[in-house]
Every structure is written in structure tokens, then in C-alpha cells.
């Protein structure tokens, strides 16, 4: 039986100050409804395009905040119920699955994928150990604290992440 290839939707890194220092999405926005577009009041093309782009940017920003809030609360809940040494690993809804990995320095790695994907803990650990530590922490130009993601999204890290993800998931070109 042919099964659809596994998909990855997005990836986030949060630092210990609750700030999102890196985010990456692999999903393409759904094609907007043509009938809805024709009903739109006629704007000069440029304005409309920048509006949509800025709306998407704020939505991504808000999503990152919501995801942080969710994992923060779930992590607390899991600790409360399972004891101090319990770790929150993942949750699944009908549409997606969220994988979570936290380093001892409270760096939080979050991966959103298809629901059929198994445990991604080792993958997130790999991203931390072989990509983040190698290309971001060891980079002589990287600052100690990555305010607003400064120094994280460098060329080597981006490239390494992209090829690593492509080796596991099917990502549309």
C-alpha cells in the first residue's frame, strides 16, 4: 500500500528568556480563495501584497508565542503530575504532532510534523548536538545571548538544518 510521504511543518527554537530565537516553516500558505480576492476592494497591487506579507509575518510571530505558551504550560503540568524528573515529549491532535526537546540549559526545540511520525526526540537531539552546538554555539561571531534570534540563522546552520530535514521528510521544492 502506498502511503503519503511524511511531512514536516515547522521548527522553532526558544531560549531560556522565553524568546523565539529561530523559526522555520516548510508549509506553503494555502492558495487564497479566488472569489474572496475578487470581492476585495481594489487596492494598488503593491499595497495589497505588502499587507498580506506583513499579516503573514504577524501570524507567524503570534504562532510562535502561542506555541511557547502551550509547551510552557504543558511542561509545568507534566512536572506537576509525573514528578520533577518527568519530561514532556510530544502531543498529537487530529491534524499535527508537536515534538519537544529541552536541553539542560533550558533551550527548547519544537518540531511540528505529520501525525504519523514517530518519536522525534533523537532527531531534535541531533539538531542540537550536531547543528546548533557546532554552527551557532561554536561560531566566534555568535553573541552569548541571541536577542531576536541574532546569530542563530547563519548560513551553515540553515543549510545543515535544511539538508538534515530533507533526509528525513519529504519537503516540496
Amino acid at each position, binding site marked *: 500500500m502506498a502511503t503519503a510521504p511524511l511531512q514536516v511543518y515547522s521548527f522553532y527554537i526558544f531560549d531560556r528568556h522565553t524568546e523565539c530565537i529561530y523559526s522555520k516553516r516548510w508549509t506553503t500558505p*494555502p492558495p487564497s480563495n479566488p472569489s474572496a480576492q475578487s470581492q476585495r476592494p481594489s487596492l494598488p497591487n503593491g499595497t495589497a501584497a505588502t499587507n498580506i506579507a506583513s499579516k503573514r509575518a504577524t501570524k507567524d510571530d503570534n504562532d510562535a508565542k502561542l506555541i511557547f505558551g502551550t509547551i510552557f504550560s504543558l511542561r509545568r503540568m507534566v512536572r506537576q*503530575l509525573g514528578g520533577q524528573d518527568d519530561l514532556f515529549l510530544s502531543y*498529537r491532535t487530529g491534524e499535527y504532532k508537536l515534538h519537544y526537546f529541552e536541553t539542560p540549559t533550558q533551550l527548547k526545540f519544537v518540531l511540528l510534523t505529520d501525525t504519523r511520525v514517530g518519536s522525534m526526540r533523537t532527531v531534535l537531539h541531533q539538531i542540537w548536538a550536531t547543528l546548533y552546538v557546532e554552527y551557532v554555539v561554536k561560531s566566534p561571531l555568535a553573541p552569548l545571548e541571541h536577542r531576536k534570534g541574532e546569530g542563530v540563522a547563519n548560513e551553515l546552520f540553515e543549510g545543515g538544518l535544511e539538508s538534515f530535514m530533507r533526509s528525513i521528510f519529504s519537503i516540496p521544492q
Partner: protein
Amino acid sequence: MVVFALLIINKAGGLIYNRTFAPGLQKLDSNDYLILAGTFHGIHAISRSINPAPPAQPPPGNRKPPTTGIESLESSHFRLTCYQTPTGVKFLLFTSPEQPNTELVIRRCYEIYGDFVMKNPFYSMEMPIRVEKFDRALGGYLVRPS
């Protein structure tokens, strides 16, 4: 393989039933359980809005299926399975991580709830469940003789 606890949350986020079947989770007082129920109710709603998956095209003539919130959560010590009924009541089942068929177990709990709580004329809706027969039926189903 054990079932640790069952929580029932009404559609407003209030805890209406809370029972532990086996030791394994930390002991919390009733106030903490109420907070936990409220928190989970909120996170469940948020988890629906951060859905990154592209919307699936419904078959022609059908309505788009509603997005579900958290259905199962895994930690290193336990697994939480959540089932939301069409009326918005949430059933939360805490089991050991290797427990199979949690979906079936939770459906059966919902059936027992339907039989002994909903059919009880003295139960007032959205209020804490104090129905002796429900307790007994759940105990008979979830407490395994060791």
C-alpha cells in the same frame, strides 16, 4: 500497564469528575486538579489554533471537518489521552506510556458516563458528578484485580 486516573472536564473548563485508580502520579490536592483542568481546557483550545497543516479539501458537498485539539500527550512517565465529545465534554485518561488501546478505553468510559450519569434524572448538568452507580461501574471496568 495501568490506568492512573480519569478526569472529566465540562464544556466551560470546570472539573466535574476526578478519580485515581492506581498510584503512579503525584498526589495533588483538589485545588491543583481544578487549576490543571482549567489550564488544559485553555491549551486544548490553543492547540487547535496553531494547526500548521494545510487544510484538507473536504469531499464535495461535505462540510470541512472541525479541527480537533490535543488527542494524546506523551511524557516519560505517563500518557494522557483526551477525548472531546460532540457536546464539548472532555475525558482525560492518564495511563502508563505502554498502555495499548487507550482510545477504546476512553470511549468505554464515555459510554459508562452516558449510561449512569446522563440517564440519571437527579444529575444536574455541568455540575460535579456524584453518582454512586457511575463510580461502581467505572471501578469495575478500570480497576484490574492484581
